[in-house]
């Protein structure tokens, strides 16, 4: 596909892929620093199904709160605004692109497993780097490949070509995307996230998770997700859409400053945390 068509193609995505209103409202409300837990709770409560799923996730082993959280308001004050917003976002986006039970060319179950593992790994890496709001890192990892699932949903035929090429040539999905579409899932994901008014950091991480230095001031965060992606593929957590491991970006590697021992420890931790978060899928 010619590069000139890109804009046109992507504007089509903007029209098609719209975030559910509740998720959108929650993002808008949490963007206002003066918003209260009650306002956010009110917005979420408008969707009963979402409410019960948020409570289920809030009560999961991943957060380890010693008592049962029974109301959204409680969940917000206990887990914090960022956690709740991320849970709403994760649940809503998962709903939009959930596996539909039928065998498909693009392995959606594997995709979400990979995304969840990446979220967990990003959180672990962020903690190791001393980043304070590690709950944000989870959503960066979880949504970094948003573009792939958008492409599979809205450009299904073109994307099928990409998958076929990956299998034929055993190449990276990103290289196949460039060859077939002329752009990659990172670019698509970035545009969609922008349209959804997601936080700027998240947009940058999605857009530059294959090229962290281009994320400028968010380079450190993009590097975390970049490395999390590679680590998850290395120990085969989920399915990234190809059977290859992308090249490690040297600057990202230097920035994270990991030695052999800490990588070994990280792999063990990753596997344990992934087991703990099984209750998350389906999100």
């Amino acid at each position, binding site marked *: 596909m010619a590069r000139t068509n890109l804009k046109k193609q992507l504007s089509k995505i903007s029209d098609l892929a719209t975030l559910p*209103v*509740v998720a*959108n*409202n929650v993002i*808008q*409300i*949490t*963007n*206002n*620093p*003066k*918003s*209260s*837990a*009650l306002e956010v709770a009110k*917005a979420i409560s*408008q*969707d009963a199904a979402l409410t019960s799923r948020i409570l289920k996730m809030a009560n999961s082993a991943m957060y*380890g*709160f*010693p*008592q049962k959280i*029974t*109301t959204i*308001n*409680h969940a*917000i*004050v*206990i887990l*914090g*605004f960022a956690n709740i917003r991320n849970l709403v976002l994760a649940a809503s986006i998962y709903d939009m692109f959930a596996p539909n039970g039928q065998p498909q060319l693009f392995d959606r179950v594997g995709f979400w497993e990979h995304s969840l593992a990446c979220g967990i790994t990003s959180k672990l890496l962020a903690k190791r780097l001393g980043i*304070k709001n590690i709950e944000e890192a989870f959503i960066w990892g979880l949504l970094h490949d948003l573009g792939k699932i958008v492409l599979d949903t809205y450009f299904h035929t073109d994307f099928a070509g990409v998958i076929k090429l990956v299998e034929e040539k055993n190449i990276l999905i990103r290289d196949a995307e460039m060859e077939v579409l002329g752009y990659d899932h990172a670019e698509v994901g970035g545009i969609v996230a922008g349209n959804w*008014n997601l936080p700027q950091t998240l947009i940058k991480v999605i857009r530059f998770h294959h090229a962290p230095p281009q994320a400028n001031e968010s380079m450190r965060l993009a590097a975390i997700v970049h490395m999390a992606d590679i680590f998850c593929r290395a120990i085969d957590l989920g399915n990234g859409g190809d059977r290859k491991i992308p090249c490690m970006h040297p600057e990202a590697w230097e920035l994270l400053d990991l030695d052999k021992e800490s990588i070994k420890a990280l792999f063990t931790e990753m596997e344990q945390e992934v087991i703990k978060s099984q209750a998350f899928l389906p999100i």
Partner: protein
Amino acid sequence: MKITPIEKDAGFLRQTISDLHEQIDLLSMLQDISKQLISRFDFNNIISLFLGMVKEIIHYNAAALYLHDEQKKCWRLVDRSGADDPELDAIDIQSSIVQWILHEGRWSPLNPEHRTKNSISILPLTGAQKTMGFLLMSSHADRDVFTQSNMKLLSFVASQASIALENQTLYAQLHQSREYIENILESINNGIVTIDMENRVTQINKNATAMLGLPSADIMGTPYHDTFDAPAVAVIDAVRKRTLLDGFTPETVHDFYPTTDLKIPVAISSSLLREPDGTSIGITFVLRDMSASKEIERLRQLDELKSEFVSNVSHELRTPMSIIKSYVEAILNQVSPSDYHTQREFLHIVNNEADRLSNMVSDLLDISRIEAGKFYLDLEEVDIAAVIESVVEHLQGKSTVHTFTTDLSGSLPNITADRDKIYRVFLNVLDNAVKFSPEGGVVSISASTRDDTVTCVIADNGIGIAEPDIEHIFDKFYRADTSDAGNISGTGLGLSIVKHILEEHKGSIDIASSPGSGTSVTIILPVFADYDSGSRTDT
């Protein structure tokens, strides 16, 4: 139910924008407060500022601050703010919820499900390494305090307070270790001075200030050239120069003048202060007051003299005793009772030896009285010429080989003195003149009066005294070590007592001599001395 997207709501957007502006103002204000917070090193100051800031944000009714006690490994209540609240006291800080909140490090409510009047929440204080403590707060439940901005603000304030507390702890530790080092420096008996490479004093202990005669130790940062006196500067300059060349200097002794009328010998050693990488950063000087060690040396010598004295005295006492005994035995057993002449001769010898013994015992008694401070004068009008003549007469009776010449210049005035003791003075000095002129010779005594003083000069042409011995001649137990004098008896106390007697009389004694050419002793006594009442009484 239709859910409306609020981004289409112009009112919501306007509100959000205005709230964001408000937020920016608040953040810049917080930055100012945080600057204040982290620039403080006083514990109570930090705590009260922190509590004040939190109160401004969520208007709590009551708050209790707990900090981790590193020694006891538990949470310790350090401060309270606001009203007394039994609900706060009832909180079990070991409960799993509290532990979970501290682990998560986020401001969280403890009882969000309970519809009570107050809402209890915990704000963890998370430092760089660990959770340092937490603030337990109670606020009105109907106030909607759990807003996103409150959460952000409180987390910000808590993190700043944690940093400030961590800094304060480090500062306190630093302060403590500095005090400890200063304590060590002060407890060292020597003077310690350190200077930097620009010659500024960086450390000085009290001993050093005392030795240098500085009014206070508050001269840190001042070049030593500006504060030490000239002799000290000269010494330090020289030592510093050598230290810079060699890295250290061995101990050398110099005179220091802490006050104008006090000179103390000080031994100085020094070494270069170096950073671990070898860069020189200054010099440490160690100043040792040598007066103490000199005093020890003096006492040691005195002790030696005393031992020598005991053996001398024993010998001296035994000699006359054995002479007396053998002559008395001879009279009793060998001399015929009719040999009156020999008996008389022997008894004369016994008498002389008994005198010698008696003198020695008097000397010993006197010296012990002097040492005990119980040496008193029994004052009366004394005809000094008569005293001298009686001494000469006494000695003439004992020596046949010496000639005595007296020149008492006509009429000498009577003086107020202790007759017996003045007699002892002249007896001792003249006896010495006789003793140290072993081959016989002339002992001349002259006396004259001038300006209410009587001056007597006793001169002999005996063996004389060597120069180094003269300055010690009045020391207790001192005897000039000359081979010629080896067979001359004495306790070494005589002149010491003489000097003391004369000083008690406000008089003086002076000796001029050189080996081989005789000795001249000058005694000066005031006619009317200004005695204090203590000297007049004899107990």
